[in-house]
């Protein structure tokens, strides 16, 4: 190879090298651009996830509000009944007291006349008239009836007040928001409390049968588990078109407690039974259901390391079985 050839080759190599350098620089700057884009996209994604999380929380909260709202109409009716008869009774009591006041005034008058009268003969005359008037008044106001009925009126009204107190206490218990606490819970008593809450929804078309077994205390979040029971009971009631029954069976099985809620309603078609726990899956109209009820039920049961299963045939009712570990999640 001549010198000339060598120089030419060297030049070509140099050219190639500078081309490669240029290309690498270009690639590097492109890479950097991509990295910045990727970083920005990632940040966007993180933001979206955050929004999703918070809207999911809002949805869960609104589902809870929806089930409470469903109860509100029934609760209003249930409160207005006792308020109705208590306020009517109080109005009547005022009339009774007016009648009794008249009697007392008449008696005062008779005493005064007796004291003021000094003539014995005249006293007998006046006294006879005063007593006749008094007796007429006692008959007119029907004092014997008033004295008996006044006690009944008060007893019934106090019963009414106690009923309202109980409804309000249950409602407050239920809407408690600091539900992050786990504690040893009597599941049968919790079911009873939830039945009380849902009673206004249930009583018009369902007969509720309780088959409660003896259960150990279950370590759980009682507020959340009550919400699970409420959702299942309301669903059971919605599945019943005219009249039907809901049977609640509780048992202690090994390390678990099992709660079975069975209704005699329309049942669940085979083709959708695998979807019922999916979020937003609903057969109800938009105004009636959010499609989150059973999804929440399963999330809560999952969080307690429990299981939920469903057994249903179209037209044969449905049966939901929950199993919760007695020792709960910390065991």
């Amino acid at each position, binding site marked *: 190879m001549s010198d000339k050839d060598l120089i030419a080759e060297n030049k070509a190599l140099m050219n190639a090298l500078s081309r490669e350098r240029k290309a690498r620089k270009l690639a590097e700057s492109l890479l950097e651009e991509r990295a910045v884009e990727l970083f920005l996209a990632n940040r966007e994604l993180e933001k979206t996830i955050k929004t999703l999380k918070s809207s999911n929380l809002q949805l869960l909260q609104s589902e809870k509000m929806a089930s409470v709202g469903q109860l509100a109409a029934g609760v209003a009716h*249930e409160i207005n*009944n*006792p308020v109705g008869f208590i*306020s009517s*009774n109080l109005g009547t009591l005022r009339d009774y007291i007016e009648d009794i006041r008249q009697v007392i005034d008449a008696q005062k008058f008779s005493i005064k006349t007796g004291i003021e009268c000094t003539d014995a003969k005249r006293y007998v005359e006046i006294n006879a008239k005063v007593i006749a008037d008094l007796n007429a008044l006692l008959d007119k106001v029907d004092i014997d009836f008033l004295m008996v*009925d006044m006690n009944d009126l008060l007893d019934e009204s106090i019963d009414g007040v106690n009923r309202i107190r109980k409804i309000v206490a249950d409602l407050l218990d239920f809407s408690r928001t600091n539900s992050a606490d786990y504690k040893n819970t009597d599941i049968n008593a919790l079911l009873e409390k939830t039945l009380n809450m849902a009673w206004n929804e249930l009583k*018009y078309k369902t007969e509720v049968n309780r088959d409660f077994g003896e259960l150990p205390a279950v370590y759980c979040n009682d507020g959340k588990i009550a919400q699970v029971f409420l959702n299942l009971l309301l669903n059971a009631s919605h599945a019943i078109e005219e009249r039907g029954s809901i049977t609640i069976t509780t048992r202690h099985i090994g390390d678990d407690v099992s709660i079975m809620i069975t209704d005699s309603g329309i049942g669940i078609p085979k083709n959708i039974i695998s979807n019922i726990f999916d979020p937003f899956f609903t057969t109800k109209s938009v105004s009636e259901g959010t499609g989150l009820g059973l999804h929440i039920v399963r999330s809560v049961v999952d969080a307690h390391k429990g299981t939920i299963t469903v057994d249903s045939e179209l037209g044969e009712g449905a049966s939901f079985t929950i199993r919760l570990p007695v020792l709960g999640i910390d065991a």
Partner: protein
Amino acid sequence: MSTQQNLLCVDDESGILSSLMRALRHERFNVLTASNSGEALKLLSENEIQVILIDQHMPDIDGLNLIKKIKVQYPFTVAVILSGLVDLEYILAAINRGDVQRFLAKPWNNEELKTVLRQCFHHFDLVHSNRQLSDLVDQQKKQLENLTVLLEGQG
């Protein structure tokens, strides 16, 4: 009106029924009570009842449906609904269809209750005497027609 005026109150809540009986103790009409639709229909078959006061929300039947059922057999009965839930659409429909004369909300005011019920009895009496009078007019018209025919025959 010489016949006895009877009011029938229907409510599944015994506290409501006894408070109504107390509040209406001095009224001119008799107060009968029933706690379900079966008892209500039985009392209606045994007594002449002009006005019924019915709870809207009862376990065995909806108040409005019970009124419809009663009106088939006793079309002139005047019905009042007593309701713990005030649903405007429901009220409007019930009144405009003519099934219900008046609507009272729980809790009610005793004086208003008495006024409403007195007006209902008054309404029943008016309709009743109106019916009797038109019957009388019909009857007399017929008699007059017969007389005219008779007179024309003689003339």
